């Protein structure tokens, strides 16, 4: 069976997940340690998650397949394939799973592991983190215009100043980021 996954990180590569791969049990227990009391081993592949997944329609994300691959220990292949970054985090899989497997939480744990193992990660996610370090938020106040093309900002709109986290925040956030 060919399970081709197109990597969005570099658009050209196609990873054949099932081509003579060896399970990595160490990485598997690492992922399982990140998902709290969810139980991927209780998954009986009913595929309710994949049936309701909006990213399945557009990007061929199959949550049940991710669960299965992790169970089998093909963790490296999953985190390097780019498929984990196609999840829109709508949580439908978590809601509808009869076994409390929560595929979305598994996907988020795999994303964390991708960062930890320095696999390819979409830049925006890392940019968000550095922006939070810098200002506390992922965005700076954006200038805007009305439909009549009048320039506006918070002050002109009568909105109060945005709060700013204090200096200690930066150091603590850094500390938290170094904890996996």
């Amino acid at each position, binding site marked *: 069976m060919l399970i081709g996954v197109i990597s969005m990180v570099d658009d050209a590569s196609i990873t054949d997940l099932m081509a003579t791969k060896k399970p990595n049990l160490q990485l598997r227990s690492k992922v399982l340690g990140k998902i709290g009391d969810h139980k991927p081993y209780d998954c009986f592949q009913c595929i309710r998650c994949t049936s309701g997944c909006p990213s399945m329609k557009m990007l061929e994300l199959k949550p049940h397949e991710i669960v299965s691959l992790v169970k089998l220990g093909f963790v490296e292949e999953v985190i390097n394939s780019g498929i984990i970054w196609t999840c829109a985090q709508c949580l439908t899989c978590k809601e509808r799973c009869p076994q409390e497997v929560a595929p979305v939480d598994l996907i988020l744990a795999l994303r964390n592991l991708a960062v930890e193992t320095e696999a390819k990660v979409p830049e*925006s996610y890392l940019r*968000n983190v550095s922006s939070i370090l810098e200002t506390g938020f992922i965005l700076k106040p954006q200038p805007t215009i009305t439909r009549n093309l009048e320039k506006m900002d918070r002050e002109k709109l009568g909105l109060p100043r945005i*709060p700013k986290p204090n200096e200690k925040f930066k150091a603590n956030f850094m500390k938290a980021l170094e904890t996996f």
Partner: protein
Amino acid sequence: MRVSAYWGCVIPNVEYAYEMSVREILPKLDVELVDLENVSCCGLPVRSVNAYASLYLSARNLALAEKTGLKDLLVTCNGCHLTLSEAMHFLNHDEKLRGKVNSLLREEDLEYKGFIRIWHLIDLLHDKIKEETIQKSMKKPLKNLKLASHPGCHTIRPSRLGRIENDPENPGKMDDLIRLLGATSVDYPEKLDCCGALLLWSHRDVAFTFAGLKIKAVQEQGFDGLVVSCPACHLVFDARQKAAGVTVGSKLNLPVVYYSQLLGTAMGIEEEKLGLHLNRSPVDELIEKMG
């Protein structure tokens, strides 16, 4: 009623109309907002990078809200509402984790104690404020309007956590609130479809496809507009509606408004105070219909 207000990243930095309209309507319903100092991002974007760092951000914001002494916290963004609610769940059910996070927070003279109750605008209006209070505040009911509601994913799921709706497959609180204003809210097949906003960080075109397909469906069913209660959903449905239309190959022109803008209009508040001049979708038609 006094509540502390947490606005997150998207509302105060881009989606000004939501903040403006919420700040206008709530005092008219005897809700006083207390802004929080020193807060940061809720942690949602960091969940994909480092779950612990995300939890630290959430716990820190919750601790800052608790520092005001107020028991009720208003979180108007669906994404922040989910992230903070989940963090509360983790912290309340795992003492070891809570101790670990609190030892970090103590360096900032903060502590998460766990006495706070999180509200979203929709359940605050639906469950906390009396119907009569809202009705009394209204100057002109919104007649002859057929609206579609978009509850958004992050305030309805996962139901096991306890979300603002009772039934995750059939949410209805926003519809009740729309009907309270005199307008019609009808179910449509795409009601639960995701807006796609979180894919903006990795698959921009697909995010626009999600949004475009939903707008197209709502438009084709003859609705006068789409009502939202989340800044991320509003961003892709309203500000990026043109781009979404290009992506799905359709001319989209559906008015998209926040529920707070709708309620504000029914209260007789001026358009500009509700930020209705900032919407990118063709809301003028809708405003005209609301008379």
